[in-house]
């Protein structure tokens, strides 16, 4: 369904068994403890989880340093395999910090056993399909190249006092 390469791929090993690592993503008591930036708090009373294919996860984040910021997260879960996989579309709305506009993004988290009772997470994230157009092959690569070029251009512009 989503054959394209993700724009973001993160691999991370957690020092915890797979069942616990999976619970950390699917149990609201766990998620409230770690999800989000350091100064953010999840309102535990407002968390609603129904973890199954076709289910959802919902919560609200408040930032300690910016009390007026209220970010609402709604994840529509498209695929869930207990202990193995969590996939869905995350909708981010509410009063977002700074200049961020509401958006949605597809993500997939896979859980794998690692030696020593640890767990490897493979996290992938896609910008929304309508953002990437029909031919996404290579755009991220292109972005990297251009980014490098632009840094040079901007450094030049700064030197010239522009």
């Amino acid at each position, binding site marked *: 369904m989503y054959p394209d390469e993700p724009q*973001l791929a993160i691999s991370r090993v957690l*020092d*915890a068994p797979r069942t616990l690592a999976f619970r950390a993503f699917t149990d609201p008591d766990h998620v409230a403890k770690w999800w989000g930036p350091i100064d953010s708090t999840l309102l535990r009373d407002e968390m609603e989880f129904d973890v199954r294919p076709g289910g959802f996860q919902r919560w609200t984040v408040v930032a300690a340093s910016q009390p007026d910021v209220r970010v609402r997260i709604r994840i529509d879960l498209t695929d869930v395999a207990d202990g193995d996989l969590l996939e869905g579309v995350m909708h981010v709305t509410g009063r977002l910090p700074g200049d961020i506009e509401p958006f949605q993004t597809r993500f997939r988290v896979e859980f794998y056993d690692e030696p020593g009772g640890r767990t490897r997470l493979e996290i992938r994230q896609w*910008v929304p399909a309508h953002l990437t157009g029909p031919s996404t092959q290579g*755009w991220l690569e292109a972005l990297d*190249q*251009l980014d490098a070029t632009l840094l040079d*251009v*901007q450094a030049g512009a700064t030197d010239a006092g522009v």
Partner: protein
Amino acid sequence: MAGTDQLSRVFSALADPTRRAILDELAERDATVTELSDPLPMTMPAVSRHLRVLEHAALISRTRSGKWRASHLETAALREAADWMERFGRFWNTSLDRLDAHLAAVQAVDRLDKKEP
């Protein structure tokens, strides 16, 4: 950061190799459609169409001086596209650091519980 419609136009404009080649050229210097067409295996009208897409995505601006219309690379739109994914990279890394600490704490408590009769 611009809205998703604007990002949508940027990503879709960048999906085309010819348009990326044009941006690479413009990263060096401003250029007219004639100058841009020279190294490319396509006609000026075809290059013009690509320039319109890039302009619509705010990746370039075009100025008219005399009869020449030069295209200029606008770096802001490109930065926004890159920032979009960078923010998520940072977001995950921060959250996963917190998750590490949380899991360590949870398991330490579990071990203590098991020691108690």
